């Protein structure tokens, strides 16, 4: 995951209409889309809403001028656990249907149900749409901008300051982590090497984890002390400068939010 950090942030530093859009708007639109697709009850109407929202995310992705391969690569990193849960659905009954029809019988008494396959596909649509909005958000918005945006939206300063510090130091520890990995490799130590005894490998990894813990704690102490030297106190917070939204941005936000809510309502109430 830590290698993806640079991958994600590299694309967030590009520029396009979507990249330049205020982070507050991107944050709220992603949130609205995810809440909407999750809130719509499990039914086949999710397909239509999913298609509409996916078209929205695809249009925004195109406007961001990022290559589609970036999206696919990031999707491939996220999918596994969700796909594992979805893959099992076809073989089990769920409480959302009353009757189950067997469409295939496999050995060992395993059966595939038509309703369960349908349910699995509904989950898949909801899952892919929510994940796509997160990919769009983090591929077009710098982390620091996101935190400032959250601060402008009213996230308490305890959170903005802590998150800002954490995000800053994630990169420091990513560097440290890479150095540790290189150091292991230069000593021909591979934690996944099965010719070494398991106990030995676990011990070495335990020491590595302990070292990272101590180093991050000590870094925290140093940072805290130097912040105190610069006047940090109980009432200090992250400085978030005011940034008024431009008219086009407000119009875009209202239109997109309206589009998401309206399509959800229209699709849900249709007979």
């Amino acid at each position, binding site marked *: 995951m830590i290698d993806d950090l640079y991958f994600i942030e590299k694309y967030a530093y590009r520029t396009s209409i979507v990249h330049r859009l205020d982070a507050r708007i991107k944050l709220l639109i992603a949130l609205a889309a995810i809440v909407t697709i999750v809130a719509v009850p499990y039914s086949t109407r999710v397909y239509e809403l999913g298609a509409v929202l996916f078209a929205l995310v695809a249009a925004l992705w195109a406007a961001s001028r990022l290559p589609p391969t970036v999206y696919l690569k990031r999707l491939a990193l996220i999918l596994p656990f969700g796909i594992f849960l979805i893959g099992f659905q076809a073989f089990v009954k769920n409480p959302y249907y009353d009757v189950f029809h067997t469409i295939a019988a496999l050995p060992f008494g395993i059966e595939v149900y038509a309703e369960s396959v349908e349910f699995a596909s509904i989950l898949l649509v909801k899952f892919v749409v929510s994940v796509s909005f997160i990919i769009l958000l983090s591929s077009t918005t710098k982390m620091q901008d996101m935190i400032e945006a959250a601060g402008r939206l009213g996230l308490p300063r305890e959170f903005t300051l802590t998150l800002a510090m954490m995000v800053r130091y994630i990169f420091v520890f990513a560097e440290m982590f890479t150095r540790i990995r290189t150091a292991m490799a230069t000593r021909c130590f591979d934690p996944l090497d099965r010719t070494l005894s398991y106990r030995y490998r676990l011990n070495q990894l335990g*020491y590595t984890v302990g070292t990272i813990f101590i180093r991050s704690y000590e870094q*925290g102490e140093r940072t805290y002390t130097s912040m105190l030297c610069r006047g940090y106190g109980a009432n200090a917070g992250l400085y978030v400068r005011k940034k008024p939204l431009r008219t086009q941005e407000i119009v875009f936000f209202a239109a997109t939010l309206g589009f998401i809510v309206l399509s959800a309502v229209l699709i849900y109430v249709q007979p």
Partner: protein
Amino acid sequence: MHIPDAFIPMGQALVYWVIALIFIALALRWARRSMGEEKIPLVAVLAAGIFAIQALNIPIPWGTSGHMVGAALAAIVLGSPYAGVFVLTLVLLVQGVIFGDGGITVMGANIVNMGVVGGFIGYYGYTAIKRVIGNAYAAAFIAGWASLFISAILCAVELAVAGTFPLALGLTMMGTYHAVIGLIEGGITAVALYLIASARPDILEHPAGVSA
């Protein structure tokens, strides 16, 4: 174990968010009161460290690799279950919003599973077992194992309540898998605790060598 969006219906997801927010508020209070005056920056930097710890590939006996959670370790070293809650909340927030690992609507559930359960089981498991058997490292091992195993069980129960994964299958699959992964979490927690107790014993809120 990061539940993705859509696997828990909105209503239930909100319930977990409320529970998570209560614990986050308590964790903030802990950070302000017991960490000294305002040591929140220190915990934030530590959270970045835990993020790196979670990135470490850890071998699992049958060949694949897994990851540590680290809530128990943070809670044991800093001497409060809220340390686990605080650190894991930050980590899960970054993982959810930046990486898409774990959903947004279900983040409350993920914070409850890994942060709250990990922190509380890790810390109270450690102190209780240490009192009984007197060995801090064995206690850390069991507490680390239990924190992960119970998190996984809770995750399976939540998915079953949501109706997206049957209980029996969830308990056997998630339970067995994490019962094994838990041994590694426990083992590494114990070894890391040993290293911290030897190298920086002053960090430890409760000295590991002396029984309380």
